[in-house]
């Protein structure tokens, strides 16, 4: 098989190169530039193939070479770039764009606290290059990660510009401690992805196994994203300017009824109320219905959603001399959201400097600042009533309701039908005034000394300083504002984090032995301050949160905490003959948040690898350019404890009018008992993997199997009530994750048409092993009003995360099952539930698992085609086996209220092939006089609302064109690239809600998987240009 593939590829190559016969020595001149920025590349090796004739490019990227008679191929190679062979049978001057190699084995890779040759790695690390991030026209790094790396689950849980994503590396390790990966930007820990301009990123390395993450000890359990930002190249300054214009649109609309259909459906529902000899009266007259048929009604989704423009500008200057390299880059993103009154702006500025002080000392400084502002009407599980949540109410408001009344005021829903308790959707969207501001400053500086040959000391100091200032005002035209006579909330918080790392590295090669020994001493300190004012009963609605003094009721709160982490790390890398590789590390973390008896945690790891491809007997096969088998084990931690959780605490906030005077009286109480034994959650992970390279690295395969067991989960352990506490935080639970990851990448076509392709797929199986003294923990993920009054998202011992429990819905009883239905006291047209325990009644004993919100596997397939000056990239990614509880449908399909077009497909004797229950007349029910055995009294924890949210998505497609270099030169520019792209262009899914990736309740991972009024995803169309001069 391999032989065959090789032959095919050789043949393809020959076809391209075949017409090459030339008679004499020719002089060929050319320019070689970087594919991405068009900058000339100096020192590129140019070799006439099958000869020893060669040269290299000068500082201007130009070369001249004599090609002897009979030769017509040049091999162009440059470190870090893909080697390219070109045909020069006709051209005597040429310009070549050299592309960066995305899978170069010889390159160095960033690992924890250092770099390592990629071939020497023993751990499991996925790498995403900055160039790949640019293939998607998103301005968010977290979103660009989706589908790119095996084992990395990215959920775009809400679609607000600047909104949230959930990133999980190899599953969920913790219940209450958080599962977010540690983000390390240029060595500074605790970074944030949102503030990063993707244009500034050189590479993202995702550290996955314990060998890679254990150097981060008590912070490493959830994986690590090591991000390296760009630096200028030696040469003259390059000015780059990128501009993208985008348009976002609602990806899909919910299918709701038109005004006439709705009116008829309401009437049909009302007419069923003919019990006890009553004669119901239709709500809508025939004339009204005729009018609706003629004139239609309001499309509420069109009212609150719009096509929203986005502008993104990026300007950068980079360059350097032998002693000093720099990059200064700025970005401005201005994005409107598809929901009216929502938008996001981000200003970002970065300065990276690196200076060689002398031949043994260097200095670096990275500073990045950003300001994000954003606003959106409340959505999803936001802290307001869903009655005034525009995303919730827009599809629920019937087309029969106009937007405004005759006086131009917001229309109030008529009584007697529909969601008459809810607020006008447009008012709910337009009237809240939300102003969120976040300023971040990240500073990181280092000094690097080469003390002796091979012995270096790097001293770094860094700080993250974030300031948040949010102001919200719900005026009296909003539901919340009406209830509270104006509701204003003002929040300020600051977060400061300082880090000092001192890294001593000794690198030594003796014969075939290569050692790298590293010692790190590190300290981190962070401090958080928060204050908030919640005010209501405003005398002047217009001033709102800008004059909190004008509110009669004000609730104040503030908080402050700090934490210290002192760490020591030792690591040794040993390679023998580049064949046998060993890495071992040991980290000690002393954390202030751990209990007094457990201040220090210890995190060892060890890994080995065998590069079989270096063995003579394998190398001689000539098949493998790389064949490496890896195995690793280690322990990492999650310092999930918040500051002071181990201490007993006197808390304010238990006020009570004890004195019997006008105001209330401050009440203090003992919040919790001390637990001086509290310690970190710890995850032991074993990984085995294999890396295979074939056809001189044109095809690379990586596969990994891992198994993780997390113990000492921080959970509340129940206490007897007589202690005065209900629980105490303790290390009690345990969770297991197992998974398989597979990634393949290659260059199927390397001729004039180049094709790079990579595919990855991964599974994660997860199981809750222990929940302390509980067998299950239920989460009632609802804001009420949806007849889901008891938990349905469960963590159950022995079962995975994301279990959805409820009653299995079997559709609707048909007329052919009249007697079976009657046994349950039901009529044809009534909903049918599974009698799980077979006792002839439907009650809480029939509850069963009706879904799981985490996928069986996820995959991504990215491709890049280039032909001449054109390139086309696209990414297809997807998820299989994940369910969503589509809670919104409960009210959308509620007879007498709901607007869902599904109600038109309701059961009737003539339409029995449906799962929408019929409208049964009360009279019919009375006459049947059946005794119902279905005693779940409207409980909506039913599988009717659980949908398969598997999907395949054309996440991104981009077509780019680079102005030919010769032409560009005429305009005195290095490079001009224009592109068009689209994001979320095609999604294939059976899910009927706005988007299969949504999740409204993300307090912890056990609650992921509920679709409730979340900001819908957009489809984006972009055009843009990249200019370099």
């Amino acid at each position, binding site marked *: 098989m391999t032989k065959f593939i090789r032959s095919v590829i050789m043949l393809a190559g020959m076809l391209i190169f075949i017409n090459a016969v030339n008679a004499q020595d020719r002089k060929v001149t050319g320019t070689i530039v970087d594919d991405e920025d068009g900058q000339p590349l100096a020192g590129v090796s140019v070799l006439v193939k099958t000869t020893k004739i060669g040269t290299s490019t000068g500082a201007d990227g130009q070369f001249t070479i004599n090609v002897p008679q009979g030769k017509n191929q040049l091999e162009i190679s440059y470190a870090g770039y893909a080697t390219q062979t070109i045909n020069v049978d006709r051209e005597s001057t040429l310009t070549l764009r050299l592309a960066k190699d995305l899978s170069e084995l010889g390159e160095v890779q960033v690992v924890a606290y250092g770099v390592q040759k990629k071939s020497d790695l023993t751990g499991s690390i996925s790498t995403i290059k900055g160039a790949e991030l640019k293939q998607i026209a998103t301005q968010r790094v977290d979103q660009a990660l989706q589908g790119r790396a095996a084992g990395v689950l990215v959920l775009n849980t809400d679609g607000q510009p600047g909104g949230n994503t959930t990133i999980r590396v190899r599953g969920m390790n913790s219940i209450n401690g958080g599962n977010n990966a540690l983000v390390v930007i240029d060595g500074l820990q605790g970074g944030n992805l949102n503030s990063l301009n993707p244009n500034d990123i050189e590479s993202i390395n995702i550290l996955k196994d314990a060998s890679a993450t254990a150097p981060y000890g008590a912070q490493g359990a959830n994986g690590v994203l090591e991000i390296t930002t760009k630096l200028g190249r030696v040469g003259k300054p390059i000015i780059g300017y990128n501009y993208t214009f985008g348009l976002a649109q609602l990806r899909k609309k919910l299918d709701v009824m038109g005004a006439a259909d709705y009116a008829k459906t309401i009437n049909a529902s009302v007419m069923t109320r003919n019990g006890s000899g009553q004669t119901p009266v239709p709500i809508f007259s025939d004339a009204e219905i005729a009018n609706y048929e003629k004139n239609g009604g309001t499309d509420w989704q069109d009212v609150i959603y719009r096509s929203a423009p986005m502008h993104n500008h990026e300007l950068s200057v980079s360059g350097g001399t032998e002693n000093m390299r720099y990059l200064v880059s700025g970005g401005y993103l201005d994005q409107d959201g598809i929901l009216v009154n929502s938008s996001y702006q981000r200003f970002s500025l970065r300065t990276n400097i690196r200076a060689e002080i002398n031949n043994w000392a260097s200095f670096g400084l990275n500073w990045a600042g950003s300001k994000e502002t954003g606003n959106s009407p409340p959505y999803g599980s936001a802290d307001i009533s869903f009655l005034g949540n525009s995303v919730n109410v827009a599809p629920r408001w019937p087309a029969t309701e106009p937007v405004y009344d005759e006086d131009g005021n917001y229309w109030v829903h008529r009584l007697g039908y529909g969601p008459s308790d809810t607020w006008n959707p447009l008012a709910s969207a337009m009237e809240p005034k939300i102003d969120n501001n976040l300023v971040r400053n990240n500073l990181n500086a280092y000094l690097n*000394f080469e*003390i*002796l040959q091979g012995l270096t*000391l790097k*001293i770094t100091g860094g700080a993250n300083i974030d300031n948040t200032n949010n102001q919200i005002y719900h005026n009296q035209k909003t539901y919340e504002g009406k209830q509270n006579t104006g509701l204003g909330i003002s929040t300020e918080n600051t977060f400061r984090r300082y880090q*000092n790392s*001192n890294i001593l590295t000794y690198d030594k090669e003796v014969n075939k032995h290569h050692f790298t020994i590293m010692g790190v*001493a590190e*300290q981190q*300190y962070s401090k958080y301050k928060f204050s908030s004012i919640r005010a209501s009963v405003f005398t002047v609605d217009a001033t709102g949160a800008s004059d909190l003094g004008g509110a009669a009721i004000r609730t104040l709160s*503030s*908080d402050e*905490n*700090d934490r*210290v982490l*002192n760490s020591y790390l030792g690591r040794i890398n040993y390679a023998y003959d580049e064949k046998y590789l060993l890495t071992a590390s040991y980290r000690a973390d*002393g954390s*202030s*948040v*751990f209990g*007094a008896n457990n*201040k220090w945690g210890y995190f060892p790891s060890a890994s080995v690898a065998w590069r079989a491809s270096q063995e003579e007997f394998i190398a001689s096969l000539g098949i493998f350019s790389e064949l490496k088998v890896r195995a690793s084990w280690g322990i990492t931690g999650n310092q999930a404890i918040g*500051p*002071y959780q181990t*201490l*007993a*605490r*006197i*808390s*304010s906030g*238990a*006020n*009570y*009018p*004890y*004195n*019997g*005077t*006008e*105001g*209330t*009286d*401050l*009440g*203090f*109480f*003992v*919040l919790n*008992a001390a637990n001086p034994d509290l310690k970190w959650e710890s995850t032991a992970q074993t990984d085995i993997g294999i890396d295979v390279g074939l056809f001189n690295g044109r095809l690379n395969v990586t596969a990994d199997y891992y198994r993780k067991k997390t113990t000492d989960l921080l959970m509340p352990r*129940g*206490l*007897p*009530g*007589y*202690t*005065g*506490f*209900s629980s*105490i935080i303790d290390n009690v639970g345990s969770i297991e994750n197992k998974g398989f990851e597979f990634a393949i990448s290659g260059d199927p076509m390397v001729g004039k048409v180049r094709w790079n392709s990579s595919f990855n797929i991964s599974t994660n199986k997860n199981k809750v092993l222990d929940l302390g*003294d509980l067998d299950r923990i239920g989460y009632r993920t609802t804001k009420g009003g949806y007849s889901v009054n008891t938990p349905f998202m469960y963590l159950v011992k022995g079962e995975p995360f994301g279990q959805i429990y409820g009653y299995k819905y079997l559709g609707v009883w048909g007329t052919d099952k009249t007697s079976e239905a009657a046994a349950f006291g039901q009529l044809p047209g009534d909903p049918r539930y599974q009698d799980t325990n077979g006792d002839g009644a439907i009650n809480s004993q029939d509850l069963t698992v009706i879904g799981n919100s985490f996928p069986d596997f996820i995959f991504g397939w990215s491709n890049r085609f280039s032909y001449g000056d054109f390139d086309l990239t696209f990414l297809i990614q997807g998820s299989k086996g994940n369910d969503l509880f589509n809670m919104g449908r409960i009210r959308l399909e509620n007879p007498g209220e709901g607007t869902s077009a599904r109600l038109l497909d309701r059961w009737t004797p003539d339409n029995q092939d449906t799962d929408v229950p019929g409208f049964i007349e009360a009279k019919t029910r009375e006459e049947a006089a059946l005794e119902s055995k279905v005693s779940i009294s409207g409980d909506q924890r039913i599988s009717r609302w659980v949908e398969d949210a598997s999907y395949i998505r054309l996440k991104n497609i981009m077509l780019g064109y680079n102005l030919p270099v010769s032409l560009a030169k005429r305009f005195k520019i290095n490079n001009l690239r224009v592109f068009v792209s689209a994001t979320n262009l095609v999604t294939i899914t059976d899910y009927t809600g706005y988007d299969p990736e949504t999740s409204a309740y993300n307090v912890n991972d056990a609650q992921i998987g509920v679709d409730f009024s979340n900001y819908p995803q957009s489809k984006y169309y972009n055009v843009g240009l990249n200019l370099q001069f």
Partner: protein
Amino acid sequence: MKNIKTYHFLFIAVIISAMSCKKLTEKPISFVEPENFYTTPSQIEATFAGAMNRLWDYWGGYGYGMGNFVNDDQYDGGDLVIGNNHGSDLWSAHYAAILNLNSAIRAMNAGNLGASATPEELDVLMGQAKFIRAFNYFMLVRMFGDIPLITETTENPTTAEIVRSPIADVYALIVSDFTEAAAKLPRKWDAFPGRPTSGAAKGLLAKTYLTMATYPMNDPSNYAKAADYAGQVIQEGDYSLVHNIEDVFSVATKYGPEMMWSFNSNYADINTDPQIYRPGLLEGWGDSRVQIEWEQAIPETPRKNAYVLTELNGVKYPDWESDQTPFIKKFMYDSQDDYDNYSSIMSMPIIRFADVLLIYAEAANKANGAPTQDAVDAINLVIDRANGYAPIAEHPLLTTAMSVEDFDEAVIEERNQELCFEYDRWFDLIRKKDSNGESYLKLKTIPAFQPNYSDDDLLFPIPDADIELNDKMTQNPGYTN
């Protein structure tokens, strides 16, 4: 190379000095630990507010109708069936209050207040602490029987071995605490009408003795003590009945002259949505309904009209469009504005003067072996007001001519009507037995539910968590764990 070495050592020194600058010991910033609290009078007082907070909470404790307590024969749905774990919320709230009060008492005993309080001020603080603790135990012991007796001297209850103490020990603590409170508290708080007084302590002490005289302590010697303390409250004259029955429950009379100590609410700290007490016709939620049989059994008096809602716009409840039951009018004194804002400022009396008069009547009759004139006078004050100061044949004044049993029964019936819906009836039902030894709980419960009765119903279950997490905890009879 030499200066490189210098650098080397210099930086090692920098590291070492840097590493030693941040300690791992936590010093909280936004709160203090218990050992640094309870050092000033205002901190002690904040503990009292904190202790009361959970008992009278928005949707919690006693703040949400009978939901967390138990339906007696006055509330719709009182079928005598009490499930496992019922009452655990109140158990937790009371013990949380006790935890905080014990901490305060311990600190005061240890002299932690130092010079911040004079001995007299310290006495008043101690009086309040003991008063509130006694109230908590008085509720717990009547609901649960033998219970863990956690006091200021109990070593860390989260780790110590705790067992249930006999009720006699619990009552001993309650009597001791209320007695100390009665001695240390002032008769009147001019500026703080919501705080407990010596009169309230004596009233509750009288109620404690009266309870101890009946089931399950059954020690008749306590009748005299109950009569003594109730008599002291009457003699002292600090409290009196509100003249007009319509005004007993109103914003104006929340802190006296009749109300002695209550769960308080005001605009700054509202209580549960007033909707829970109103029927659907008044846009309420109809959560707290009155048992129809109970309403029908009580005589028509101005008091019934003041306390029970049976009619709206001239239409009697059986003909209402929805919620065809009587409702509790006592707690409907919030204004429409408050109602619209979902903010109730109602208070719930814990001890009030009418209660003290009835305690006195019951105790004096029993202690004396026959109704005394004072006992008759005391109860007649209540009856006369209920009748609007005019004779009502179905609800006559009592006389000394009555037998001790008849008088006793009449007092309990008067309590039933006067103190309805005030978390009082249940305790009367479980402590009283007729001459045949039959519990009032069985006798007075509406006929439909009487077959459900067993002696096990007299106690709430010990909460599941306490049974499961402490092997030494035993369950009350009739519960399955």
